[in-house]
């Protein structure tokens, strides 16, 4: 099981947090801080696994992370997950982001946290890996985005239709 997924930047600012077990907000922030503290002091050329986050999990849990440019992607997982598998999964997730945002950068995550969540939801669900095939993930995300677009298009049409009554022609519509 994945217990939490955290994305934060080189300064520890959270860009996405996703806990699969309940923690109160202040505890969440504390976990982010602790995790950032643990992860940030590590060189780039050391291994991507970390034990000893005391706030989250315990001895059965590991932090598995990857560092991309300005962002850390940290997964907190228990021993049922394969370490290398999760590393691959992070890669898949990031590549998916890259595809969906077209050359993803930190700013995309900052301004579109909701979209990142929606993409993540297609990869991990309730702490369990849902899909690892990037094409499938991207396809599902796109279909849903199209639905959203068509809904907002409909709304705009509706809006236009309702704005028209302002002209003297068709009063009875109101």
């Amino acid at each position: 099981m994945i217990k939490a997924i955290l994305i934060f930047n080189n300064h520890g600012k959270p860009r996405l947090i996703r806990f699969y077990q309940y923690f109160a907000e202040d505890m969440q922030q504390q976990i982010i801080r602790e995790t950032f503290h643990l992860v940030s002091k590590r060189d780039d050329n050391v291994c991507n696994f970390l034990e000893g986050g005391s706030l989250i999990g315990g001895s059965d849990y590991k932090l598995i992370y990857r560092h991309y440019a300005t962002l850390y992607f940290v997964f907190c997982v228990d021993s049922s997950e394969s370490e290398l598998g999760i590393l691959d999964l992070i890669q898949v997730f990031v590549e998916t982001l890259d595809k969906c945002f077209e050359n993803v950068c930190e700013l995309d995550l900052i301004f579109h946290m909701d979209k990142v969540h929606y993409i993540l939801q297609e990869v991990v669900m309730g702490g369990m890996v849902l899909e690892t095939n990037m094409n499938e993930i991207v396809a599902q995300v796109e279909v849903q985005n199209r639905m959203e677009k068509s809904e907002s298009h409909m709304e705009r049409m509706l809006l236009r239709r309702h704005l028209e009554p302002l002209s003297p022609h068709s009063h009875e519509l109101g």
Partner: protein
Amino acid sequence: MALKIVKGSIDRMFDKNLQDLVRGIRNHKEDEAKYISTCIDEIKQELKQDNIAVKANAVCKLTYLQMLGYDVSWAAFNIVEVMSSSKFTYKRIGYLAASQCFHESTDVIMLTTNQIRKDLSSPNQYDTGVALTGLSCFVTPDLARDLANDIMTLMSHTKPYIRKKAVLIMYKVFLKYPESLRPAFPRLKEKLEDPDPGVQSAAVNVICELARRNPKNYLSLAPLFFKLMTSSTNNWVLIKIIKLFGALTPLEPRLGKKLIEPLTNLIHSTSAMSLLYECVNTVIAVLISLSSGMPNHSASIQLCVQKLRILIEDSDQNLKYLGLLAMSKILKTHPKSVQSHKDLILQCLDDKDESIRLRALDLLYGMVSKKNLMEIVKKLMLHVDKAEGTTYRDELLTKIIDICSQSNYQYITNFEWYISILVELTRLEGTRHGHLIASQMLDVAIRVKAIRVFAVAQMATLLDNAHLLTGNVQRKGICEVLYAAAWICGEFSEHLDNPTQTLEAMLRPKVATLPGHIQAVYVQNAAKLFATVLKSQEGNTDSTAAQETSQLMIDRLPLFVQSANLEVQERASCILQLVKYIQKLQQKDVEIAEEVIALFAGELNPVAPKAQKKVPVPEGLDLDAWINEPPSESESEDEQPRAIFAKEEPKHSRPRHTEVDEKELAKRREARKQEQANNPFYIKSSPSSQKVYQEAPGVEHIPVVQIDLSVPLKVPGLPMSDQYVKLEEERRQKDRADKKKKEKKKRKEKRSGRGKRHDSGPESEEDITPAHMVDIVTEEMPENALPSDDDDKDPNDPHKALDIDLDKPLADSEKLPVRSHRAAEVLKSPAQDGDAESAASQEPKKKSSKEKREKKKDKDRDRKKSKEDKKKKKKHKHEEKGEDLLGGQAEEPVVQSEATSEVAAPPTSTTAEVSDLDFWLSNAPVPSNTQEAATVVAAAEAAPTSEVASGTAPDSEPDEPKDTETEETKSSKHKKKKQKKEKEEKEKKKKKKHHHHHHHSDGGGEESVQNGTVEEEEPLPPMSNYCLLAENSYIKMVNDIQGNLQDGSQVVVSVIFENKCDSFLKSMEFNVLDSLNSKLQRPEGSGPHDGLTVPFQLPPGVSNEARFVFTMQSIITPQKLKGTLTFIVKNEDSSTHEKLDFKLHFTCTSYLISTPCYSDAFAKLLESGDLKCSSVKLEGVVMPFHHLLARICFRHHFSVVERIDSCASMYSRSIQDHHVCLLVKTSGQTVSIDAKCDEPTLLGNVLDEIKQTFSQC
């Protein structure tokens, strides 16, 4: 209306969206908090608007703020509103917000049940998907219970996208509502073979997650997983399965043997490192589970170690890390194969990566031997000096101690060396592990008698230099060591060279700055030392020395009498008075040393940590019962007794220090003084000494130099551990030389003796003789200690609830709540439980005949499997013995009869699994702990044998014992099995009797129930709702009808067909004459009069269930449909066509679905006035009220809303959403039911049916 929308939309254009919010926050870096609080105000305004778009936008922004740490639970209701929007865009926002901030105690969650249910059944798969995703994050026990059935339906959705999500979420549902596991499991299992790889992977994921916690329940799935493992190409699935096997193999070593080959192949073939690694891991698990040292597996070990070495040597730090991790697993069972890589692991200790160093440390633990311990520890000590961060250094410290102390100091040859290592470790700055070192010192000094002289000398030096340890604030942790030092010096003071000096050191004023519990030990042990000093000085002619010592005590102790710590104060006062008394006696030249020593006589032996727990509770003693009335709450617990020499947990004593604050202490002291003054028996101290108390701190003018050094200190006068390494080396060399000489001699005499020894190095373990003759005192255990060691399980583990036997067949009562049963569970009463039990006992009874038949079925399955396997292996099948696939000994001859060999395997039955697995693994009996399994296996063997014996005509009475005919053909082994079976049978009967007893006490009605006939007449509630549909000499049909909540016009009829004869039934066709109102749903393309083929065949004695869907237009009246079942009875020599007519009775009850209803909603419903009234009176009902309610709940699908005394309100809903409300009152033997429903006809019919139910009993 339209204007409103327009207005909302225009408003929206001016609202901040998420991007604006983020931009705003970024622009207000200085006053972020202030800016956000204004934003939250805006959001609150937006949430008040009616426009859902505005609300959704606001909720979206809240989700962002939640990430920044703001509590947004106040908007929970708005989130629910957004969730229930019909637009996907908003719904998604709502569910996202909910998944981020809802949790079990969010109260609005209970409002979401229906909304979620609606979304789950939405025609748009993405609505369903979003709901599932959201639900996976905030599912509560209530939601899980209410939605389990809906989610289970989704597991068979047409879209794989939904299927995989539904499958995954089931795990969460199981966790929250463990009762759903058994009903849902068969379908989950089906999904393992789903055509869509995503769904398959999800199912594997869920089952692996379940199996990880309770592996033994999933052992029966091993063959299926094995098949998946050999066929799947998806690395994710493979990794999960292989990990699962790793968890299963410890339970079933034969599985391991079977796995080795395919896993080894994978190791050789795969290019994916992740897969390779997991394979190696599982092979290791297999090797651990197999008895080690088997010659044919040494190759596998070598392969693993060799692959791991490659990983460790890789430049990729991740692989290095994992390699070390896996290596440590091999180490436990095959230390030799790892030890040869010591160089590599020591090299990793120098790695710049802390994770890797820690892993290497773990490995070292298992690699030490007598020979290399000193060398390894020396290396570690070097690292301790170099280590920068305290965490890593502390880790090193604990590891050094672990390594040395493991398995009762097995590897230590020279304890002087170890003591000096411990002393060296006290130089560490800022370590948290002072108490660890202290407990080691105590342990060694107590248990290794030979080392006491040395230890005492070292400890005396430590005490003498105590200021070095306590000087710095940072060194607080390490002063724990002084606790040990003081105790050792006191307890073993006879070994001290200069006790007077040590005594002086222990009474220095600086000691008063130590933590209280250490001071207390100082004081107590000063007294012990004092006794020793007295003893040594008494012999002298000059008595002044002794008197000086007494004076020293009298001078210094008052300092401690003033201590803020009660313990210290009390001991000091006590000892001070004692010394004064001694001094008085000394002045009279009385010899008192012996008596003083007697105060501290006696040896303290170590006690095993679990000794207390292991003391058996004497018979008749109830530890939980109160001896006196329970004390009032106010009595605080701060006066817990504390073990004085509690070396294991000195931690405990520290918080004590803070518990008693100064004020209270002063108060207490005052009170005590008062009391002392008033107490004539209290020996008051002289006023002069009182004065000394106050002046005490000033009396001592010994200059104390405070040395604050940041460099690690060297305590002067202490030996360095390094010198021991050298000494040891020399000693060993000498030893070796001696030995060689001896050996040469020996060899000349006898050449063969020594050759066998497997030397792992130039010098084998046994050659190293310890420097001291060590007597390690073992820990004491109480007499007749309980042997059990199962106190390690965590009772709070949520997964414990999921420890459910999945191999047992599903009982009728086990259904997901929506269908019928939960309401009955609402009432928890002893009688009810009794009913449940009697129903449970009913189960095996019914099975007793059924089970036996099932055995045959199992056999067939086994047979089929074995056939397949055999084909694969292209081996010839032996008639008498099943093939042993694992190459083990076939212990049980499995006899197969030709009569059943052509039978196609019936659809999967869970009971079959156990014996199935057994066969798959080998023919040896499984050491299975569940009785159930044992029965099945035992019976499985018995049944077919009898068939062979009786020729081709199987028994017509499956119930009858077959011993008589089969005895001759059975081997003795079979007899044993048989006996076992009989025993179980007897047990069952006993149980039956027991439950009947229950039965009577319930007043259930039946006076005499005979074993066998109970099935039909048993009327008690949690029994099956299945009723007889039709029966003839060939077949019996029982059925149950349930409404389908998803579709208001559908009911599902479940029919169990039971083959009663000894022939084979096939080509069964089920047909019903449709009426205008009700129609049997037939597959597309078939005509309105075509029958439905029952999708299975029935071998003799077997029963199976099929479901038929009917479409109803109106449900307000009961219906009867005529139908026919046609089938072919196939005998050995002939086959006949038979038919059986039946009448399918759709009661109105069958359209009702038990639905929970809250009492407020219920009240509203009654007030609404839409409902029509009706009532009915039942006379002569002689059953307890709760019993009656349970019956209505169970038989008529109601749920209890509220119950007050002899009055209860009940609710149910029809599949077409009619509300049915009941008010049930009882007085004496009369029960009156007032009922309301929006459809009077339906109500009338339901009431009639209820009446009927009660008139029958």
